[in-house]
């Protein structure tokens, strides 16, 4: 009797690689940022002088990039979804998240508070999250199209 809600051995192996890639992406991003601070500034909290982001935004963007690397690798290696997972539901959920975040970012743009004191804050996180989810959705759809062509 098979358990439908699990990843098979190949998927687990590939997901391991994906986690490794995501981890090293985050590590390299942090190292680069640290390197920049070490070279340019003595005071590491003056992040706004170096990049137009608040520290929280900067940190969140780093995580988003690592998650995007992980998701993209998983999608292209057929290990993003577990066996028999409801892909349509998840795709719809991602699309809804993307649209909501993009709408919030647009609302901030319209109200003119997208930037605070010359740096990007929370509204920018909404934009980045929306774009990330949109990218992941496109990857899933693209992979599905490729898969239909490759069917036996």
């Amino acid at each position: 009797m098979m358990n439908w809600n699990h990843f098979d051995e190949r998927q687990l192996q590939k997901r391991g690689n994906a986690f490794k890639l995501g981890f090293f992406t985050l590590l390299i991003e942090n190292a680069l940022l640290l390197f920049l601070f070490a070279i340019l500034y003595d005071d590491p909290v003056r992040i706004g002088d170096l990049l137009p982001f608040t520290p929280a935004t900067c940190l969140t963007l780093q995580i988003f990039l690592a998650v995007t690397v992980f998701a993209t690798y998983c999608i292209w290696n057929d290990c993003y979804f577990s066996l028999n997972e409801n892909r349509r539901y998840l795709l719809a959920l991602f699309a809804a998240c993307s649209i909501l975040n993009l709408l919030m970012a647009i609302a901030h743009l319209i109200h003119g508070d997208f930037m605070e004191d010359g740096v990007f804050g929370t509204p920018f996180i909404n934009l980045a999250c929306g774009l990330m989810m949109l990218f992941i959705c496109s990857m899933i759809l693209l992979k599905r199209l490729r898969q239909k062509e490759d069917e036996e």
Partner: protein
Amino acid sequence: MKNLKLKSARAALDLSQQALAEAVGVSRQTINAIEKGDYNPTIRLCIAICRVLGKTLDELFWEE
């Protein structure tokens, strides 16, 4: 290296990749990867495939 023995054994039983995948509890892409030689299955999966196809490990996975 492609595993043509597996592919022909599956075809002989008129099983699709999806049907074999469901019978052994993996994804269709995993069966496809094994047949294409892109993935080396564990002995556990090899045995499961052999059982479903009614073949021995030698018949399906031993390279001459």
